[in-house]
């Protein structure tokens, strides 16, 4: 298979403009003759569905939550980037592009990333017009903060609830189109298979989560905006139900899965408190602007936050400030996470488990006053106290890295189309813009860029060549896909073994975290692969799912998702094995600099690893898309 990313000709800054001019248009009167299925109502899905409906296409929109407003995007806290340069501090499209490419450790496509930067400003305009109440300065203009290691202030935010406000904006836009009759909405409905006819994506099979009814929907194109797969690790900052099923089923129908091992571990999460832990809570990265991260110079077993207050300055190691004098506590996420792990590995971790470091606000509170901190981080401090019972105004917070975001995802070309014609992937579910590491506040930007400003153009180019005829759902391909879905559900229900889904999921997560988490090596990965295969076999022999298909059934829903996590987990391990370099969030212990930093091997690994499913229990085929850098010079990232 030959991968063509369809990157337009011409200089970087002109590519998108030229492309928009060159692509085919669908006549306004003909748009209503096309049906588009959009799976997902997060930032990417809701913005796409709304924008496409506004253009006149017929949209069917699906999500598994009870309302489109509850997609996982709602939980994003920190903010959204845009190169507005409102602060006059030297920002530009080019700088945002450059930061994103560098932040991604040179494993993303220049053209895609430049376009992202180019449309970023329009996103802010759009959201403000929808009534998104961004934070403002006293003069009434929009406020910005610097975020996640950026050296300009380009992050727009709405208190600590930016994702919520942006999503509610997109939700209001899709609601308007539902009222107009242009979007038909299917909440509590989960896509369980993709239907491909003559090499074109022509529909999906879904399960109504309330009645269990399996049903097909036919369309002229299918858009997946189904989010990331961080929950492979069981514990992550993702919402409980976030899963990989839609993308994975598409993969098994032929869509390539790119860079599956690129996962982002976020440095500032509340540490695990015990076996019962069901998910991890992120403390916004913005806290690193004012908090100082430290551990004691000499390990102290079980050091509590209360006792930490009494540890004198000279016995503290502010390890990020020490190791990275110019970026200090604001180094990128992967670097901050790895350093925290290193400290804990050295036995200097704190708290009951020794798997935590301090994030301390004492100096800032003394400098700026409690009010100032309360204004900036009040809700985060309250949240922390609610969860841990420690008050961060009085004692330092404890944090530890946790799985947060997945850079990998379905392979897409410049048009956001996968290698299956008419199948698109948007938002976190594609692989396109963040390389091996995503910068803070750039996922919201990407989701909305894809949905509001990219797909409305690029999908027209494809549909313009499509006949209007609809494929009826009694067509063979639909029937086969439905049968496939039903068989699998039946198989899950009839195992009737002894272990619950959560039990399996936890064990899988632990294998992935231990061997395919913050640090990876050949031996560990090989071991993990065997373990995942062993556990998957056991899953299909000893799983217990109660209830039936014909009702709301939480355990069945989970079983379906976890079954896919097993397969995806294995591919993540294969991908991590194959990539014998370190880059961004992917740290191969065999490939590091003398100072212990990630060492890329550009002449061997400057490619996107796109995996092709070749059949059940067959090894997947690796297809490489070489990355060509014409505008930036590849350098070893340095945050010293």
């Amino acid at each position, binding site marked *: 298979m030959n991968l063509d990313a369809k990157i337009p000709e011409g200089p970087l800054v002109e590519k998108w403009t030229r492309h928009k001019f060159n692509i085919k248009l669908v006549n306004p009167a003909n748009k209503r003759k096309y049906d588009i299925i959009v799976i997902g109502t997060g930032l990417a899905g809701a913005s796409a569905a709304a*924008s496409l409906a*506004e253009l006149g296409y017929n949209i069917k929109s699906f999500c598994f*939550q*009870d*309302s489109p*407003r*509850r997609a*996982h995007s*709602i*939980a994003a806290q920190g903010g959204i980037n845009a190169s507005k340069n409102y602060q006059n501090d030297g920002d530009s499209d080019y700088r945002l592009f450059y930061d994103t490419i560098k932040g991604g450790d040179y494993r993303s496509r220049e053209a895609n990333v430049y376009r992202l930067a180019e449309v970023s400003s329009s996103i802010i*305009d*759009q*959201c403000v*017009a*929808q*009534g*998104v*109440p*961004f*934070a*403002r300065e*006293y003069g*009434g*203009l*929009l406020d910005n903060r610097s975020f996640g290691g950026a050296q300009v202030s380009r992050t727009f935010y*709405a*208190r600590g609830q930016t994702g*919520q*406000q942006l999503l*509610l904006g997109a939700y*209001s*836009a899709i*609601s*308007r189109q*539902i*009222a107009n009759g242009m979007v038909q909405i299917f909440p509590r409905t989960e896509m369980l298979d993709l239907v491909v006819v003559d090499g074109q994506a022509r529909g999906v099979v879904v399960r109504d989560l*309330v009645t269990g009814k399996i049903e097909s929907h036919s369309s002229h194109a299918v858009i997946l905006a189904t989010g990331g797969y961080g929950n492979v690790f069981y514990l992550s900052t993702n*919402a*409980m139900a976030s899963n990989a099923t839609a993308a994975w089923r598409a993969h098994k129908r032929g869509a390539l899965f790119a860079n599956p091992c690129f996962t982002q571990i976020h440095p500032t999460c509340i540490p695990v*408190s*015990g076996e*019962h832990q*069901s*998910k991890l*809570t992120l403390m916004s990265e913005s806290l690193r602007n004012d908090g100082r991260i430290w551990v004691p110079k000499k390990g102290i077993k079980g050091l509590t936050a209360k006792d930490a207050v009494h540890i004198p300055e000279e016995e503290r190691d502010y390890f990020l400030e020490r190791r990275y004098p110019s970026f200090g506590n604001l180094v990128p996420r992967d670097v901050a996470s790895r350093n925290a792990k290193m400290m804990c590995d050295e036995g200097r971790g704190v708290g009951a488990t020794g798997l935590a470091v301090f994030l301390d606000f004492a100096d800032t509170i003394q400098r700026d006053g409690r009010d100032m901190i309360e204004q900036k981080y009040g809700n985060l401090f309250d*949240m922390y106290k*609610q*969860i841990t*019972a420690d008050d961060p105004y009085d004692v330092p917070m404890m944090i530890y890295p946790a799985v947060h975001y997945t850079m990998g995802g379905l392979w897409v070309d410049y048009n956001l189309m996968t290698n299956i014609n008419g199948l698109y992937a948007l938002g976190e579910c594609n692989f396109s813009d963040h390389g091996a590491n995503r910068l803070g506040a750039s996922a919201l930007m990407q989701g909305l860029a894809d949905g*509001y*400003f990219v797909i*409305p153009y690029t999908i027209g180019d494809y549909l313009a060549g499509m006949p209007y005829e609809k494929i009826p759902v009694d067509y063979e391909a639909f029937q086969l896909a439905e049968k496939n879905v039903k068989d699998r559900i039946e198989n899950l229900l009839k195992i009737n073994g*002894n272990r*619950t889904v959560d039990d399996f999921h936890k064990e899988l997560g632990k294998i992935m975290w231990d061997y395919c988490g913050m640090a990876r090596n050949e031996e560990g990965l090989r071991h993990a692969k065997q373990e995942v295969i062993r556990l998957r076999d056991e899953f299909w022999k000893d799983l*217990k799912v*109660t*209830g039936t298909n014909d*009702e*709301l059934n939480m*355990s069945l829903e989970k079983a379906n998702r976890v079954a896919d996590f097993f397969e995806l987990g294995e591919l993540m391990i294969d991908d991590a094995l194959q990539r014998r370099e370190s880059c961004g969030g992917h740290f191969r212990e065999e490939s590091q600099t003398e100072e212990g930093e990630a060492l890329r091997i550009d002449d061997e690994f400057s490619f996107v690893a796109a995996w092709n499913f070749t059949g059940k229990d067959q090894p997947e085929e690796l297809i490489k898309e070489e990355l060509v850098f014409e505008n930036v010079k590849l350098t070893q990232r340095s945050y010293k």
Partner: protein
Amino acid sequence: MYFKLKIWRQKSPEDKGGFQSYELDDVSPDMSFLEMIDVLNESLERKGGEPVHFDHDCREGICGTCGMFINGRPHGPQRGIATCQLHMRSFNDGDTITIEPWRARSFPVIKDLVVDRSAFDRIIQAGGFVSVSTGGVPDANEIPISTSIANEAMDAASCIGCGACVAACKNASAMLFVAAKISQLALLPQGKIEAKTRAENMVEQMDKEGFGTCTNTEACEAECPKEIGLVHIARMNREYYFAKQSSESLSEREKVHEG
């Protein structure tokens, strides 16, 4: 910690439903309330029983998916948080905890603690938006907005659509939820243009969905996990009254003239 749980079990919308008692030992005070239910469910499933169905997703108080009526209060005993943010340390060892779904005519039970809140979505569809399409909007800084207005709009916009206000109200009124959206958009210049029709349409839909009337018991404000204030109801009433008087929907204006 040890707890006795009395939980509402209802197999389907048609089923009558009833309370079931369970006992749970070895509960850690650091567990969240939903993690406590997870533990119960694990043990039920191991014994071949069906887990207690409940809605949840983010588990950090922002998605509005969770919602349990705990010991007679929506989202439990603590102010200003959603069910998923409640921790077992808020209870005493040995307590009996009663757990029910939201109870309101407009929120029919689907199963156990899961209810259908789609009425809220339909109210938003009736007008909870600014009618702008993608593209062609002015620069974000073209219209300055004072911080006090922006802050107040943000307070209203914090609503997570959980429905606790409805569950708390003896009339099952949705006023606080509806007011939060109307108020947010009425405060902002971007939303002002459609303020009148929005208020009329959303209130009309709210009535259609069968939510009760507001008799100012203020229970909603007390139980709202985002502490959305009654000031928004006052603002909505002003908007609505003003809208009715000078309605831009002609049929509505006639009604006012007639009556």
